[in-house]
């Protein structure tokens, strides 16, 4: 399996994910156990009362990136627990990019870290998630 094939498979899996579509999240790149996603910030969609991105939108980006990273290692997962630390925020017409990486790939749990960056590569938030393994994908191997 190469990155391109995996990316196409993962994009297919996430195409039916309504909340991901609603938030305008795009999967840019996958490696084995890693994923890079982006979310262009739209004023009418993602912002809160201060005109910055709503924490829930950034949490969604991070949570989705964690799921994609697990998919890239052939795991079908659900979130058990997720923690996000918010450091910096952005306004509309900028893009938030999230890089997720599996730190532990177990039989029943996967732990993943994700970092969200702004256009200038400033760290916006840091996420640590513990995912429960529901099953394994037949199309994507655990190692490639």
């Amino acid at each position, binding site marked *: 399996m190469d990155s391109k094939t995996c990316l196409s498979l993962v994009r297919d899996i996430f195409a039916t994910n309504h909340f991901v579509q609603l938030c305008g999240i795009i999967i840019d790149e996958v490696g084995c156990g890693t994923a890079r996603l982006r979310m262009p910030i739209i004023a009418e969609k993602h*912002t809160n009362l201060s005109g910055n991105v709503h924490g829930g939108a950034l949490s969604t980006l991070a949570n989705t990136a964690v799921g994609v990273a697990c998919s890239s290692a052939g795991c079908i997962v659900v979130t058990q627990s997720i923690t996000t630390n918010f450091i910096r925020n952005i306004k509309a017409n900028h893009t938030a990019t999230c890089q997720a990486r599996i730190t532990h790939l177990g039989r029943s749990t996967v732990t993943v870290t994700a970092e969200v960056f702004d256009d200038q590569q400033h760290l916006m938030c840091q996420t640590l998630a513990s995912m429960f393994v529901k099953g394994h994908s037949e199309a994507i191997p655990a190692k490639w």
Partner: protein
Amino acid sequence: MDAAACLKIVRDIYKSNHFVALCEIKIDSVACGEATLSMIINPEKHTNLYGVVHGGALEALADTAVGVASATVGARVMTLSINMNFIKNIHPGEKATAVARVRHQGRTTIIVDVDTWNEQQELMGRTIATMFVRGQFENIPAKW
């Protein structure tokens, strides 16, 4: 200040919150330091690939409930850190209700916890958040 007056002010504040509107989150009731919010699951909006609610949508509900609970004590806040444990999930058409309570009200930080329930009053998620106090809402007192 009574609950009805506070509810009206808080609903006005959240009117201009695009992400909250996008997620169809409603503020049901407030008390001093408490807020109950709900979100009816829309199959075209909130679901993930399994047809249940995306974790990010439930986080958005919880994160918003935290903000509203903080507003009921007159605090204008932003999320510093949020942790959510997912216990149960629901299907489209059902309603998720988040009940947030301010546990510590400091000068610079507020700690809030949130229980998210399904319609059968079963616990769906447990959240704890640390909020940074950016300022005050002049029309809502800290105690009432």
